């Protein structure tokens, strides 16, 4: 069974700090996505990574896909209160098999 473990589970930081969220698996994924979910809403796609070693930047967010396509990280620079939310990684393993990670709840304090 494919699993995606995220760490940390919870993170509370001050505005302006940097942070990194990790998404790990023992399985290989053909592609991996990161979503952010705010209270009362569904997850919203942030980025898709496909190639091992790939790095993508979205303003203050940097996403990296591991060389072996088994793990990924999300780094936020100078976090802002608007970054608060539940961050989810999700991977496409087998044919049309798509699973979500365990989630990281981030709170950025002003």
């Amino acid at each position, binding site marked *: 069974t494919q699993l*995606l473990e*995220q760490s940390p589970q919870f993170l509370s930081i001050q505005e302006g700090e940097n942070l990194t969220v990790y998404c790990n698996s023992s399985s290989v994924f*053909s*592609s991996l*996505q990161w979503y952010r979910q705010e209270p*009362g*809403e*569904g*997850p*919203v*796609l942030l980025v*898709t990574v*496909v190639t091992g070693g790939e790095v993508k930047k979205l303003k203050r967010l940097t996403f990296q896909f591991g060389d072996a396509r088994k793990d990924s990280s999300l780094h936020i620079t100078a976090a802002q209160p608007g970054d608060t939310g*539940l961050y*989810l990684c*999700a991977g*496409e393993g087998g044919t*049309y*098999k*798509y*699973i*979500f*990670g*365990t*989630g990281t*709840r981030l709170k950025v304090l002003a």
Partner: protein
Amino acid sequence: EAGVAQSPRYKIIEKRQSVAFWCNPISGHATLYWYQQILGQGPKLLIQFQNNGVVDDSQLPKDRFSAERLKGVDSTLKIQPAKLEDSAVYLCASSLGPSIFRSPLHFGNGTRLTVT
């Protein structure tokens, strides 16, 4: 484009009662998903439809949960009878096709179910 529509937004029922959720996907999206999300956790896939056929329902508790997709468009998810552990947010998502890389998921805002 209009997003994925779900109703109701909230539902409170007593255990052993039945409940139904409705989802209208984005127009033209062939693939529809129902997820269960326990508070603070990642969504768990319950069932995936491709048009009106079931692609994956391996994690659907079939003794109490059922789902259908009428004419390959709207979908309903039913729970009968409900248990306390069914308290969760039920998310509907749709995509153009079954390959997530080529067609990302678009989620509705979910239905929050509380079973007392």
